[in-house]
């Protein structure tokens, strides 16, 4: 007789536990969306797909889903890994081996070689290259994130990466926003 009651009791409690967990998972999806935004805010937004995902937002989603580790972002380097570790309470790790480190840079087109094939425009993730078919192309310095996606597609290899010092010299009293990335090949 007491066994029956015991089983009944256990079933009752199991149901309560399952209810609690169901409640948790429902609110979890909303929390994950917010967490994805926060992780995306940390990523450098170069959209360079070197982490293996098509952009920074997909990589952020993968991190929150637990599909990707936090050390697959070469443009961000240690700073981004440290921030992600702090944000998600995970231990800090060096950059993953299959992600090659990447120096910040800005693309520039060697005008003699450009034949106006417009392939680079199609692959640039931030529309930083302007030009019409068979016309001269140029890169918008301030918009280019240095993702180097346009390099392989260019048939005449006329795109070169310029290492852009992010901050030339911070003049006294000058705020960061008025600085344009100076070009020095």
């Amino acid at each position, binding site marked *: 007789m*007491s066994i029956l009651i015991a089983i009944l*009791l*256990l079933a009752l*409690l199991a149901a309560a536990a399952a209810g*609690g967990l169901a409640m948790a998972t429902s609110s979890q999806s909303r929390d994950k969306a*917010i967490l994805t935004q926060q992780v995306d805010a940390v990523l450098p937004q170069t959209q360079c797909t070197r982490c293996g995902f098509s952009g920074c937002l997909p990589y952020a989603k993968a991190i929150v889903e637990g599909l990707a580790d936090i050390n697959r972002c070469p443009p961000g380097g240690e700073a981004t890994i440290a921030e992600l570790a702090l944000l998600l*309470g995970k231990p800090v790790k060096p950059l993953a081996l299959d992600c090659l480190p990447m120096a910040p840079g800005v693309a520039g087109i060697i005008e003699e070689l450009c034949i106006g094939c417009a392939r680079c425009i199609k692959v640039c993730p931030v529309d930083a290259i302007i030009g019409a078919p068979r016309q001269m192309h140029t890169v918008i310095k301030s918009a280019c994130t240095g993702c180097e996606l346009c390099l392989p597609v260019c048939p005449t290899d006329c795109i070169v990466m310029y290492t852009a010092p992010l901050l030339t010299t911070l003049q006294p009293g000058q705020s960061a926003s008025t600085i344009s990335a100076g070009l020095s090949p």
Partner: protein
Amino acid sequence: MVTSLSSLFLGGALANSVLLYQLVGWDTLLTAPRQRRLVQWVAAGVGVMLIIGAAMAWLLDHWLLAPWGVQALRLPVFALLVGALAPVCKTLLLRRQGPGTSLLREAYPQLVFLDTFLLTNGAVLAVIWVNADIDLGFFASISYAAGSATGLFLVLMGTAALGERLRVADVPVVFRGLPILLITIGLMSLGLLGLSGFINH
């Protein structure tokens, strides 16, 4: 009666604190330093769970298990109780922060993982178990649970802040991270040892 309750409270908090004396719930303790922004909420969450858990456990024990003489089922029942309580406490904590958006949620994104934290914490089950064992009565178990909760809160906050300070200390490479954290907790509990002998029950 009152002194015994307060001594239970002080005992739970300082003398034989759940974490340092009964060496339970160390997974939260060791990850606390990395959760710089989350540690207050984890500590508060575990505290809330402890108190509610102790109360419900006593009720379950006396009104359900005892009449039918199935005290043997204590462990599974308490475990399921903790399982049900963890998400409830988390939503309780977050909802309490006002209607839709909660300041908490925007400020501390890791709250997504909060319920797993509360769930896997051993301290909650330990306190409930000890309460069931010594069985001094409803208010005694509540005060012991509240004492353990405050003790746990203080130790977690202290460890998290200390851990943050250790991140910058020029610790020899071999000892960086977990070893130095364990040594620091050891020295802290060395201090807390001085408080033993408060409770003579």
